[in-house]
């Protein structure tokens, strides 16, 4: 109960701050509109208002505060505007509609999941190689690290162009960008996990004259699962970012990234913000789902975290 109260307090504080921020952010637009509609505004001309600070304008035109939360195309939309837009584009639209966020969300989700699967598979394979081969440890790991220092926003268009030129388009290029972001946490976590059995455990297997593959399946792999799950949670969120970024440079017509892009072309800030929130909610759901699977699996394995 105490926890819920604390959480609600934080949420309330964020929303209050958000509403407060809308006032100075949107005041100029509101006043310009009001002037055109014939209301008395101080100062009277747009030129004079441009030289004044936002807070000063709020102080001299307190009547306009309410309007800063109700503009059509505000610089910063108010929380309830985003909430209404989210409601309209999810619950009130048919899923097949091009304006439904559910429709766009599932386009992005399918690329995310495919990319996540590719990235996780690749990450696990690389980790197995790195743990068992010193050469791979020294040759692959540095490249894996370097790969993550390149901004994905710079790399994504190149990946898409290169793949397009060899005839690959559709979901796969997005999934590959997704995989590019998600394989790294899996490699790092899995390497650590596969190396987590202590000397005693490894010595014990040695006394049984166990082979490397027996050691892998019976000891290393089960021991690595808690580490793997921690990495998967980071990986799935990174996958979603990858899929969205992959939609930006292609001028894709569907997906949360396309929705973001279209919103920014037409100055539809409410649409941008609702797409952002949709992405955040999707990421939270995916991470929560993984958390649930993690709890079930580790509990069954007697390693509840």
């Amino acid at each position: 109960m105490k926890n819920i109260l604390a959480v609600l307090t934080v949420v309330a504080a964020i929303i209050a701050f958000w509403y407060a921020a809308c006032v100075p952010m949107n005041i100029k637009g509101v006043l310009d509109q009001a002037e055109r509609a014939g209301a008395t505004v101080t100062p009277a001309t747009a030129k004079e208002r441009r030289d004044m600070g936002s807070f000063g304008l709020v102080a001299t035109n307190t009547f306009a505060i309410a309007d800063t939360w109700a503009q059509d195309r505000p610089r910063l939309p108010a929380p309830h505007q985003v909430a209404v837009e989210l409601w309209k584009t999810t619950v009130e639209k048919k899923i097949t509609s091009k304006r439904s966020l559910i429709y766009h969300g599932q386009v992005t989700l399918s690329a995310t999941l495919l990319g996540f699967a590719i990235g996780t598979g690749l990450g696990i394979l690389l980790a197995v190689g790195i743990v068992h081969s010193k050469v791979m440890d020294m040759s692959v790991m540095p490249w894996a690290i370097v790969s993550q220092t390149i901004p994905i926003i710079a790399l994504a268009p190149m990946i898409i162009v290169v793949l397009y030129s060899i005839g690959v388009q559709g979901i796969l290029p997005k999934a590959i960008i997704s995989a590019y972001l998600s394989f790294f946490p899996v490699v790092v976590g899995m390497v650590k996990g596969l190396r987590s059995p202590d000397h005693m455990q490894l010595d014990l297997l040695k006394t049984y004259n166990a082979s490397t593959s027996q050691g892998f399946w019976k000891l290393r792999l089960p021991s690595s699962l808690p580490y793997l799950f921690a990495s998967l949670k980071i990986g799935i969120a990174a996958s979603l970012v990858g899929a969205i970024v992959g939609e930006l440079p292609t001028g894709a017509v569907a997906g949360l990234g396309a929705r973001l892009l279209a919103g920014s072309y037409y100055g539809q800030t409410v649409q941008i913000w609702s797409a952002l929130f949709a992405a955040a909610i999707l990421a939270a759901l995916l991470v929560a789902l993984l958390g649930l699977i993690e709890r079930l699996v580790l509990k069954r394995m007697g390693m509840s975290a």
Partner: protein
Amino acid sequence: MTNETTPQASSSQAVVEARDLNLVFETNDGPVQALKDVNLTINKGDFVSFIGPSGCGKTTFLRVMAALEHPTSGSITVNGMTPDEARQKRAYGYVFQAAGLYPWRSIAKNIKLPLEIMGYSKEEQDKRVAQVLDLVELSGFGGKYPWQLSGGMQQRASIARALAFDADILLMDEPFGALDEIVRDHLNEQLLKLWARTDKTIGFVTHSIPEAVYLSTKIVVMSPRPGRITDVIESTLPKERPLDIRDSQEFIDIAHRVREGLRAGHSDDA
């Protein structure tokens, strides 16, 4: 193997023979002589304790027997083979200070681990698990998970795991070191019974003088820097040993000799 007709003949058969064994670890602070000129013979059916302060090489010697470390010079044979060959023939079970059971396996499945690795059939696995669980008095606990068992029971399960395959040498590295004294007494008593029933050869590393004297037919006293054997005491205690034998004069005399040996080893590094 020819004259196994009398127990005396079989008990004098050498299982482990170490001759002029030396082991030097290269560390960042220079070489460390972990074992120096170690000569020791362990006969079949012996219960040999290795006792001495930290760094005396008792664990190292056990690990050399198990081919987990390799000597720098000298020779050692286990069942007439090199330790590596003996390992491939599954000559020994090893028990570490921590039970080291897999948390994701039940007790029975933990005991099956070496059997799976060595390729025993399913029926054979089940039969052996039942056998060794009975041997360590854990029948009925096979379906439990390690976290459901006390520390002493976990250690018994790890002993069962080492007994599950047919190793005739059991190497134990301070197996009861992490347990309290009451549990330890109980496990010592059980271990002796188990030894009597199975006729295994046991190498046992310990810090405790009473434990060493109570359990062993042969006590190897070691001292550090360099790790070496300072005394080998053949116990005169009977094979049948109730716990109160520890109050007998004979027991006290042997314990005294062990203490003397430990002190002698210490005096020359002062």
